[in-house]
């Protein structure tokens, strides 16, 4: 019996009475290549009724790649736990990983392959479509758009595109955009001589000076950073690390800082230079070039930050403590001069090294020496849209990213999508992009998948994090790698010769086998099958010893210049929701129900307004406002937030889905719709330059929050989701 034709229902039918029967997975033995369902009449030796079986795998809720151990009981996944040996997360997890089972067992998942309009097809037909696309499309017209995870699929797709002569896959996601990853990498090249995202070793630091990096929430590798943060605070007896955060809106990360400095948006780079100058002065040395050009008093005034605080930080860094690190990230890099700002901030590390402090910056060595494909910049995405509009893209494959939801409306991706004659989506959910796809060939969720991921940031050693299925696929989904390889075989010829893998597992095993030669790993095995079993058992491969070496920082010459802003009343900070992040898992109800750490709001989008600004505009908590930018408008309820600059408002990402499922759909608003921008020197989006106007709508829409329920009863009565949409449409139509 073929495994794809078999559903859980069939298994139950087959076995007659369901009582003594359950579907189990055979996946951890060295011979296991395929996921097979077996009833308990032929019970695998490791599966005892009532006893848990644990599978090590890798989290795919964000691109970091933390190790997980999933507890399963009788073929069902029960609980996600951290892999205690994994070098990134050492047994811990974030909220997103915890709720991953609600993604796996989500009733709104795509249940099988279908064509546009919803008609179900067989997998054979789906593979035929992919094969035809690979065969008949001129190679330059084939585009693969992938998510941010540096995984095996990206590598397999790269091999396929190379064999076809097609352009390499484009990896992009909203998270990379608001984290300004490529900007950081470009600045790191100027300061450290390596074009990659550096890791900041905050665990060892006595003083962390962070410019906008929300490293405890969603930034790059949040669990690894949180782990390091705990060690920084209380991990060294008698030496408590101190943390300074400079950003316009107090993020959850900033809320944990000893000192939070709300510098005026656009002045963060200058603040870094002023800090450097002050440090040089304290140390009694001449300030190097970029720092000498600023006058700290003037900068403090322009940034609306007390000079005295900057002086105290500089003195503490130079005189009182040994290990200091400065890191840039997120919103402060979202300007057209973002690369220069990042360089100015990173240059502080170079200055501190000159003052005799150790370097606390390193680059995660890529597993097996193979650098994963860098994510695309916003500029490259704009080029893609141009090519789509010009009709040059004939077949577009989309996996791991939801462009219609995630990409800014101003990019025009939706319209461009209509000009592509063949769009194939591999999304596991019926997301916003699926209606534009001619074929929807749903992939498994990560807990049903094979794979590996080369950890790019956050680890002090080479890490190849492995995935294996922890349960049999819940629905009639199929691994995208298997679909592509089946299509490649169908095409045959030179393509099949160059991409000779029979299936996904064979491809993965071939890549994993390269590590068998290594003698510095956590395990060794002479036989490939034993090595493969150990790989699955440990949840990956990594070296026994930390191998990353501190990077030596230079002090580059840099002209920070002025940040440009649109016209408008208020600065806008769009930040990844600390729980929902980019919103890819917004249909996991427990992520919706987990309160936001700083506002305690659940299930909705809010807009943070400073108390004074709110008073001036006559706004109170829960007042519905229209937020208008030159590029779009959204509705949201006001949250009067004490930790934000009076000239700034902030809105979390993650909500505002128009599809995805019952818990995400029509809930809140998507602030990405407000964005529109130029690009900076690295080609990344200057998302921080948008300014907005806020208009009171004259009615309230109560936010569900954990902190209190005052105001829920009475005039601000709770509005059901469908009602809200109606009223918003009414408002919009009267405006027009």
């Amino acid at each position: 019996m073929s495994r794809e034709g078999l559903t859980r229902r069939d298994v139950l039918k087959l076995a007659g009475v369901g009582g003594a029967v359950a579907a189990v997975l055979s996946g951890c033995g060295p011979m296991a290549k395929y996921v097979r369902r077996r009833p308990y009449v032929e019970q695998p030796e490791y599966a005892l009724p009532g006893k848990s079986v644990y599978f090590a795998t890798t989290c795919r809720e964000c691109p970091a790649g933390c190790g997980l151990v999933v507890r399963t009981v009788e073929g069902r996944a029960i609980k996600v736990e951290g892999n205690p040996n994994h070098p990134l997360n050492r047994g811990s997890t974030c909220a997103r990983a915890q709720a991953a089972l609600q993604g796996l067992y989500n009733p709104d998942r795509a249940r099988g392959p279908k064509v546009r309009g919803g008609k179900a097809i067989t997998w054979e037909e789906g593979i035929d479509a992919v094969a035809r696309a690979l065969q008949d499309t001129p190679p330059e017209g084939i585009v693969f758009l992938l998510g941010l995870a540096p995984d095996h699929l990206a590598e397999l797709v790269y091999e396929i595109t190379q064999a076809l002569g097609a352009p390499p896959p484009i990896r992009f996601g909203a998270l990379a955009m608001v984290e300004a990853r490529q900007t950081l990498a470009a600045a790191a090249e100027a300061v450290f001589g390596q074009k990659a995202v550096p890791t900041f070793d905050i665990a060892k630091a006595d003083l962390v000076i962070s410019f906008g990096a929300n490293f405890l929430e969603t930034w790059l590798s949040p669990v690894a950073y949180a782990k390091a943060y705990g060690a920084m605070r209380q991990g060294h007896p008698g030496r408590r690390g101190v943390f300074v955060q400079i950003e316009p809106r107090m993020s959850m990360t900033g809320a944990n800082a000893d000192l939070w400095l709300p510098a005026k948006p656009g002045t963060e780079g200058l603040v870094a230079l002023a800090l450097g100058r002050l440090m040089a002065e304290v140390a009694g040395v001449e300030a190097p070039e970029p720092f000498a050009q600023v006058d700290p008093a003037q900068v403090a005034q322009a940034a609306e930050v007390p000079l005295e605080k900057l002086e105290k930080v500089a003195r503490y860094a130079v005189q009182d403590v040994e290990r200091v690190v400065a890191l840039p990230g997120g919103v402060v890099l979202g300007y057209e001069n973002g690369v220069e700002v990042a360089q100015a901030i990173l240059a502080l590390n170079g200055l501190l090294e000159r003052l005799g402090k150790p370097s606390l910056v390193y680059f995660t060595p890529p597993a097996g020496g193979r650098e994963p494909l860098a994510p695309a910049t916003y500029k490259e995405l704009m080029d893609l849209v141009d090519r789509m509009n010009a009709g040059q893209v004939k077949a577009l494959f989309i996996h791991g990213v939801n462009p219609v939801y995630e990409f800014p409306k101003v990019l025009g991706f939706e319209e461009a999508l209509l000009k592509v004659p063949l769009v194939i989506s591999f999304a596991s959910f019926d997301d916003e992009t699926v209606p534009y796809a001619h074929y929807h060939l749903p992939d498994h969720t990560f807990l049903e998948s094979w794979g590996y991921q080369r950890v790019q940031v956050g680890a002090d050693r080479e890490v190849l994090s492995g995935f294996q299925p922890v349960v049999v696929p819940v629905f009639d989904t199929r691994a995208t790698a298997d679909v592509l390889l089946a299509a490649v075989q169908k095409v045959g010829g030179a393509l099949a010769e160059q991409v000779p893998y029979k299936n996904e597992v064979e491809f993965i095993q071939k890549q994993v086998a390269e590590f068998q030669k290594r003698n510095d790993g956590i395990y060794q095995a002479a036989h490939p099958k034993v090595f493969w079993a150990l790989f699955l058992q440990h949840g990956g491969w990594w070296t026994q010893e930390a191998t990353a070496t501190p990077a030596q920082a230079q002090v580059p010459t840099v002209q920070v210049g002025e940040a440009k802003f649109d016209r408008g009343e208020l600065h806008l900070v769009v930040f990844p929701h600390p729980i929902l992040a980019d919103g890819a898992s917004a249909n996991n109800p427990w992520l919706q129900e987990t309160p936001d750490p700083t506002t305690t709001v659940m299930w909705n989008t809010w807009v943070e307004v400073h108390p004074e600004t709110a008073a001036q505009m006559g706004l109170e908590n829960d007042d519905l406002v229209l937020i208008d930018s030159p590029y779009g408008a959204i509705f949201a309820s006001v949250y009067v937030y004490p930790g934000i600059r009076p000239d700034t408002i902030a809105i979390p990402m993650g909500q505002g889905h128009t599809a995805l499922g019952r818990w995400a759909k029509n809930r809140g608003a998507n602030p990405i719709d407000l964005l529109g921008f130029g690009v900076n020197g690295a080609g990344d989006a200057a998302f921080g330059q948008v300014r907005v106007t806020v208009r009171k709508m004259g009615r309230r829409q109560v936010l569900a929050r954990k902190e209190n329920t005052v105001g829920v009863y009475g005039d601000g009565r709770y509005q059901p989701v469908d009602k809200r949409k109606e009223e918003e449409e009414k408002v919009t139509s009267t405006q027009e």
Partner: protein
Amino acid sequence: MAGEEHTKWVMVIDLDRCTGCNACVTACAMENNVAFAGEEENAYGRGMHWIRLVRYWEGEYPEVQMRTMPMMCQQCSNAPCEPVCPVFATLHSEAEELNIQVYNRCIGTRYCANNCPYIARTFNWFDYEWPEPMNYYLNPDVTVRRRGIMEKCTFCIQRIRRAQEEARLEGRPVRDGEVQPACAQACPTDAIVFGNWQDPHSKVRQLAESQRGFKFLEELGTEPKVIYLSSQRHEF
């Protein structure tokens, strides 16, 4: 007998490590089959979180500071919730020194919740659903509660039991660190530590002796078994 020696389970929460990330909240809900009540119920304060982050703002902009504190049932030795229960649904277990809730005795008077100074108890106002197949992940070790029942943090007693059973099978005492409630296991900053107070070498015992230690609302005489370590702040 090995594994059944007298235990007093305590939890230490280091507020200087805690970032308020809420990973414990989600982890607790997934382990303990805590129902998601949805937006409307949460707006009315009927969310079912067994653990929550209590958030305080201090000071005025720009010197504003946020403090958070994970709050759950403190497993009081002298628990205000216990004497008010007319049906002995909420009572003290002598063996573990835990405050336990017997779901099938509970008749939903909610007296216990009214009397809890920590607001740690949540009430099932409705029957909540896990639509198929989401019910697959429900933990078979934990009862799924229905309408009209009071519930609260149990210190993951099912995990304590599991560790004790495994230790008993191997004929040894439960090791320090072997029992980890879901919140402590998930915690990204290792702020939550759980263990046996009776073991003088346990990590909780050592941490609890820190000068930063305090118990929340201790002055009420509740004798909580959660010890917080106060957060610190460097003044610039």
